[in-house]
């Protein structure tokens, strides 16, 4: 009996000792759920801001027009090619990759306009809030500073993925109606993967522009800077690569090793550009006949069967490119996080 009493005593004392800890734990947890709720509220607000904005409407209009144009071009090309060609396999994917030469194909449009969309949604995320004086008001609310950045990114990425996926499905549906040829499950998965990659790609540009908006206090500066980077990679980078390529071109009578080294170097250089990475990804995913992204020697090609790659193999082939794209995105986010967390936030500074 006495022992029982003692035990009880010990238990109550333990409870008393634990109580403050539990309490603080509970308040921590409450805070955590509250901050999660705040995060959701921020994402909602940003999302609705984007949807209401003129800029988004204009972008959407441009992209939709481009897509319709590209489908038209792909379908004319398909009809011209006729059904007799040997490329009947993966016919459905050709809606995305074929062009009659007048208007670029769908993938090119995405590769070209996607970055613009990312930049347009991101270039003024932080600096406009700062210059309008809403940032200091917002940051003095009980939210984590990084939640603010994350919410901005999440809302924009959500919007981007909705736009890209709905466009992709729209193109698929239209193609289905026009060519009357249903996709195989593999083709469908390939298209889905392609759309996913497009989201990742636009996500990179979005993050880059958010980074610039943290860094530059003027929205115009960050927009110009982002566009400059975009133009550099889409236009000038290939020119520079060409120059370099001419400069280091090995002798025609060079050994196989020399020539291989040259090609590998050129590949490496061109893959610094995120546009090139995305290009590699789309080619591999939407054209299963592409067997390698680098050079192949005659030795490797002889006796190889002229057959498309299996889906798994295609994914394996673009895995490094995908990793690089995600890594670039993460680096941008990390940098903006680092700068933003250390910045002093004053009213309208």
């Amino acid at each position, binding site marked *: 009996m006495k022992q029982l009493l003692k035990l009880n005593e010990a238990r109550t004392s333990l409870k008393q000792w634990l109580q403050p800890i539990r309490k603080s734990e509970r308040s921590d947890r409450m*805070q955590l759920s509250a901050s999660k709720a705040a995060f959701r509220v921020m994402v909602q607000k940003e999302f609705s801001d984007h949807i209401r904005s003129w800029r988004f409407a204009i972008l959407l209009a441009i992209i939709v027009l481009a897509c319709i144009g590209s489908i038209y071009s792909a379908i004319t090309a398909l009809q011209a090619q006729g059904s007799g060609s040997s490329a009947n396999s993966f016919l459905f994917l050709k809606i995305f990759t074929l062009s009659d030469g007048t208007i670029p194909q769908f993938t090119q449009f995405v590769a070209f306009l996607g970055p613009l969309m990312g930049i347009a949604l991101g270039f003024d995320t932080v600096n406009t809030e700062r210059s*309008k004086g809403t940032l200091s008001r917002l940051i003095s609310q009980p939210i984590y500073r990084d939640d603010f950045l994350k919410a901005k990114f999440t809302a924009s990425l959500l919007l981007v993925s909705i736009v890209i996926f709905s466009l992709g499905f729209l193109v698929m549906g239209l193609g289905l109606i026009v060519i009357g040829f249903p996709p195989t499950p593999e083709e469908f998965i390939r298209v889905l993967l392609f759309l996913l990659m497009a989201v990742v790609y636009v996500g990179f540009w979005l993050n880059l522009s958010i980074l610039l908006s943290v860094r530059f206090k003027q929205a115009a500066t960050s927009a110009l800077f982002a566009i400059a980077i975009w133009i550099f990679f889409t236009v000038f980078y290939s020119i520079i690569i060409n120059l370099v390529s001419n400069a280091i071109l090995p002798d025609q009578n060079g050994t196989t090793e020399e020539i291989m080294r040259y090609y590998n170097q050129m590949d490496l250089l061109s893959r610094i550009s995120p546009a090139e990475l995305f290009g590699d990804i789309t080619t591999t995913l939407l054209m299963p006949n592409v067997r390698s992204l680098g050079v192949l020697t005659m030795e490797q090609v002889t006796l190889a069967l002229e057959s498309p790659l299996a889906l798994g193999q295609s994914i394996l082939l673009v895995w490094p490119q995908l990793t690089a794209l995600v890594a670039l995105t993460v680096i941008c986010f990390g940098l903006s996080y680092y700068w933003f967390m250390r910045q002093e936030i004053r009213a309208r500074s």
Partner: protein
Amino acid sequence: MEPVIELTRLSKKYDHYTAVNQLDLTIYRGEVFGLLGPNGAGKTTTILMMLGLTERTSGDVKVLGLDPNQHAITIKSKVGYMPDDIGFYDDRSAIDNLIYTARLNGIKEKEARMQAEQLLHRVGLADAATKKVSSFSRGMRQRLGLADVLIKQPEIIILDEPTLGIDPEGVRELLELISQLSKEEGITVLLCSHHLHQVQQVCDRVGLFVKGELVACGNIHQLSQAINQDSLTTIELEIKHYPASLQAALQELEQVASIQAQSQPNGEEMMTALSISCTEDITPVIAKLAAEHTELYMIRRKGYGLDDIYHQYFEGGETRETALKAK
């Protein structure tokens, strides 16, 4: 009294510039404290450090007993901060802006709307609730800012230059609202300003802040006593004439240290204004003497207003600095 904000030896240095230097300050629950200082004195920096919005170089901050570097979220949920030149989302209505703030503070949507409506009514913006903030005047924005600060039901509110750019009537209303809040709801208010008169109207205690240092702190009475160190009382009076007999009588009083006389026009006639420095408060004696010898228009004991205090301290600061530079 329970201290809610405690700053001990708080310093903030930018590259070569010390914004806040070894600041010690305690603010108690329920009081209205005015932080008074010229532009660039480091008032805003101090506030930012209290909220954990900027890192301090050294020293200690406790807000509601918590360190803002570790418990910024808890502090920010209990402290409302209204920055100077407050910004709102211009393309949203006033009530939407308020609801957004409320929801960031974890208030449910329905309740948030209710509270926002109540607060808008309270700050006198009920009619403009659904108007976009871009159409608001400066004064309306400040009032909306006050509502925005209050919607989280804070224990402390910090107002940075709340009266900047508002017309006098608007200032009066805003200050009335602030003192009402502090009295009715027991909210501690920290008011930063360089408008001494406004601070004087509502604040229980005042801290004078110059170049990152707190040069004086206390209520108005304490401050005026602090300046009036030579402990002379100045008595001013206006009389019709200043006869020699009165002069002699005054000089005979042992408490009188010095007399200054000046004749001034009073309508069509002339009158004399006297300023007498005394070691003691002998206003009744002087009044009696003056009334005996001539016609007395006015007599008052001069007290130090915040204006004098402000001048005294800030001028002192400047002369001190020029002296240092000369060296």
